[in-house]
């Protein structure tokens, strides 16, 4: 009965000591975070510090990036992600200079080999969140962040993740991109100057009906022969066909290859040109015999190419019942 107050006193003393210790640790990292040179708000770790940071009795959350920035390792993703992570640390540090229980830390492979080995990490970068160990039992397991390569703003994604998985709300303050602004303004001024200077030379071309006609026709031909499909779906130019040969025509109705669309565009162009020749050039020929031959020739070109087009289409769409002689697929 008399023991009870004693035990209580002892326990409270112990917990105080632990709290004191963890506060010390917290203070240490807060100092480290605000003092570390280069990027403020990021604690640069080594094996020793990592042990402290993730040791028992911690009352703070830490987000640790395991990375390998050295060029020897050739980790492109690490170098791409580093500025984003710095931005994350900076943003937090700007809002919370005393870090308020959330640390962003980096452990590079070159100074933390043992930790990498201990944790069995063979890839980088890895981003982990260590929640406070004294919050509630069972909740102190570290969490791992899944990198999404298609994410264009990883810092925001990480911020969302940290916000979702800890009690801290992280907001990103992206610094205004002055370089982009200046290059944009410079680009406009440059273009304006250049066009002013070049105007006397370009003006004839600008007002040339032929040029515009050519550009429009090429555009129409490209678009109607499926160029945008190639561009969006990034289809291959040619593929390896069966038996080692090269296949120009993709099988299937809603599929195509790069070369295939070019063939089609050329066929369309020649067909259109023969139609133009028939209705414009032919009636202006002086000699009747020459005209007769030319009309027949263009007529034949038209027939053969249209027949070729139909046969390609039949190849793509097997159930298509029509064809045009002479080419029957």
């Amino acid at each position: 009965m008399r023991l009870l107050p004693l035990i209580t006193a002892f326990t409270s003393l112990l917990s105080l000591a632990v709290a004191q210790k963890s506060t010390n640790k917290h203070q240490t990292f807060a100092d480290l975070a605000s003092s570390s040179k280069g990027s403020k708000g990021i604690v640069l770790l080594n094996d020793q510090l990592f042990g402290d940071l993730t040791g028992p009795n911690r009352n703070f959350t830490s987000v640790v990036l395991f990375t390998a920035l050295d060029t020897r390792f050739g980790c492109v993703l690490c170098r791409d992600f580093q500025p984003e992570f710095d931005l994350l640390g900076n943003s937090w540090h700007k809002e919370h200079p005393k870090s308020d229980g959330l640390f962003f830390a980096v452990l590079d492979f070159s100074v933390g080999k043992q930790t990498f080995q201990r944790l069995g990490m063979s890839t980088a970068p890895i981003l982990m969140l260590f929640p406070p160990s004294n919050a509630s039992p069972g909740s102190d397991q570290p969490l791992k962040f899944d990198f999404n390569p298609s994410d264009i703003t990883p810092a925001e994604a990480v911020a969302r993740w940290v916000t979702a998985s800890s009690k801290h709300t992280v907001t990103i303050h992206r610094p205004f991109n002055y370089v982009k602004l200046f290059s944009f303004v410079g680009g406009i001024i440059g273009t304006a100057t250049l066009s002013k200077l070049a105007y006397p030379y370009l003006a004839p071309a600008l007002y040339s009906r032929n040029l515009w006609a050519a550009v429009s026709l090429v555009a129409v031909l490209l678009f109607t022969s499926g160029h945008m499909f190639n561009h969006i779906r990034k289809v291959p130019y040619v593929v390896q066909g069966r038996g080692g040969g090269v296949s120009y025509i993709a099988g299937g109705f809603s599929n195509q290859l790069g070369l295939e669309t070019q063939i089609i565009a050329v066929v369309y162009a020649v067909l259109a040109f023969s139609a133009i020749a028939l209705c414009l050039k032919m009636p202006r020929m002086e000699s009747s015999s020459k005209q007769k031959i030319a009309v027949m020739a263009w007529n034949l070109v038209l027939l053969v190419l249209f027949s070729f087009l139909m046969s390609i289409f039949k190849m793509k769409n097997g159930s298509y019942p029509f064809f045009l002689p002479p080419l029957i697929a």
Partner: protein
Amino acid sequence: MSTVKSILFKDPASTESTRSILRVLILLTIAAAAVASRLFSVIRFESIIHEFDPWFNFRASKYLVKHGFFDFWNWFDDRTWYPLGRVTGGTLYPGLMVTSGAIWHALRMISLPVDIRNICVLLAPGFSGLTAFATYLFTKEMKDSGAGLLAAAFMGIAPGYISRSVAGSYDNEAIAIFLLMFTFYLWIKAAKLGSAMWGGLCALFYFYMVSAWGGYVFITNLIPLHVLVLILMGRYSGRIYVAYSSWYALGTLASMQVPFVGFLPVKTSEHMAALGIFGLIQLVAFVDYLRGQVPSKQFNTLLRALVILVTIVAFTGLVTLTVTGVIAPWSGRFYSLWDTGYAKIHIPIIASVSEHQPTAWPSFFFDLNMLIWLFPAGVYLCFRQLTDEHVFIIVYSVMASYFAGVMVRLMLTLTPIVCVAAAITVSSIFDTYLEIDSPQESDDDSESKKPKKEKVKETGGFLSSKAPYIGIYSITSKVAVVGAFSVYLILFVLHCTWVTSNAYSSPSVVLASRMPDGSQHIIDDFREAYYWLRKNTPYDSKIMSWWDYGYQIGGMADRTTLVDNNTWNNTHIATVGKAMASSEEVSYDILRKHEVDYVLVIFGGLLGYSGDDINKFLWMVRIAEGVWPQEVQERKFFTHRGEYKVDHEATDTMKNSLMYKMSYYKFPSLFPPGQAQDRVRGARLPSEGPVLHTLDEAFTSENWIVRIYKVKDLDQFGRDHFSVSAFEGGKKKKGKKGGMAGRAAGKRGRRVARI
């Protein structure tokens, strides 16, 4: 010879009346052909509304004729988007429903009480006849009435347009293409004559177009672009000024009367081009006026500086307003036309729609056949003449080709101009080769050439044809060319008929298949299931399904849905996606919170119907992931080798998802043990099917395409459904003789696997 000729080919002036009668007859025939070729589906199946969106339009039309116009205008629909509801009257384009409503009333007035459904089914073919007429008028302005008739014929039967206007395809496009062509015709007329009356008429039809289809933005941008190009070419004239100003002022004010459009014409980037050109043309007109009055050279320089300054200030102001958010930037739907990768990353709900995919070349050829290569030739011919209206054709051609290349759906806007350009080409060829008079070859004098000499503009380069026009000498050449083109035209008609009959005439509500003996077998699972819902569930029950089927459930089953094809609320759709993609524990909670009574899934595994929900499943996952990236993750639905599998290799997340369970529930029991096979994905399924705890199978259609599940009520003893089924399962194990009691749970059609 000459007497025959004089009888057959009288002086044009005297045969004018005959010609106009012929023209009317030909146009009527074309209209009849256009209507007739769209009736395949009515003849083969029945007078039925097709696809998905038409079901909503049909439902709205029924509401309109039942409740009247004012109720329709203020319609708040509490039977969709449960529990949010939808302000339907203010979020739809009412033009289509109002048109069919007006026809319905007009027919009643002359004592012809036609069912509104028949009007809806036949509206699109009817309007295709009018489209042919509008195309005739448009092309007549470009060349002559011969080309106009050809263009009308092409337009009447081109599959690119038929695809959206067969009988039963009661969608906005049904009337919109007619309005598009007619507005363009009126615009050309206005620009040619410089008449405010034609400009006002153009604005009136523009208003009709705005009230009918979201694609009106195409007109809103194309007309200003035409004007801009004309100004840049130095072709500004008073005519353009009058036409554009009257069209823009009246048209914009009129378009703002449509509730769904409202203040968009002054607030969004899509409409800013029209506003900017309106400002520019005022400036240009001002300068033009002053130039006539004040000849001083210095003053002109000053004026030019002023114009440039005002333009820069206006442009900067526009940019500032956009950046600060007063003017909304390009909406995602339109923006994704320029930045083609945008939708896939940011708006999966748009990228998921199959008609928003880019177009491969066979689709162009399929929809337009020989017109597609006559099209560039027509554009070239326009370049040769290059009057103001030809500039319009060129601008339209380039823009529409680009849009059609980016999105399959926009083939629809390309088709009219292809028909027009191709008609110009064919008619030019026929003009040359159908001339019965042959020139005499003479090398000394130009006596015979003189009357036919054409004034050719000197342009130089490949557009030039400096030589004088002579004609075709030999009859053989004429016959050969005309013969060849006649064959091509006949082939074109055959192609169009074949395409229409085979590709564009199935209602998609009813699937048709061939029996081994060649007879037609109709698979009617959808209507069977919807009818079951209509007859066997309480009127206010809520049905959850993927949004594709929302309109059909609303239209055919008349039950409340959670999401539908309107897709106005991405989060709500993502909620449904999450419910489908999550495990039963999570889903049941969502289902209860949304008071869902029934869940409907489409399953094609038995029949080999590939448009089923498992194939759409990844989009559900993606859309849900966009809103809850922590809870739904696409990667977890792929095996570690990155494959999308449904067989025994499927991931646990996949196997536990509600969608998987509902699709394959009891499916393996159809087959001998270990033989269960999914015919769509060609996968052999595990012999043990998934187990459902929180849902009961309520109905499965004849060919298993539609499966409906009832959400279980809360347990009476307050247990969760997992412990209930564990408890009951344990009991069952003791008295194993009980047999499969689960079978009795739902009514089921004949279970015959038939392909």
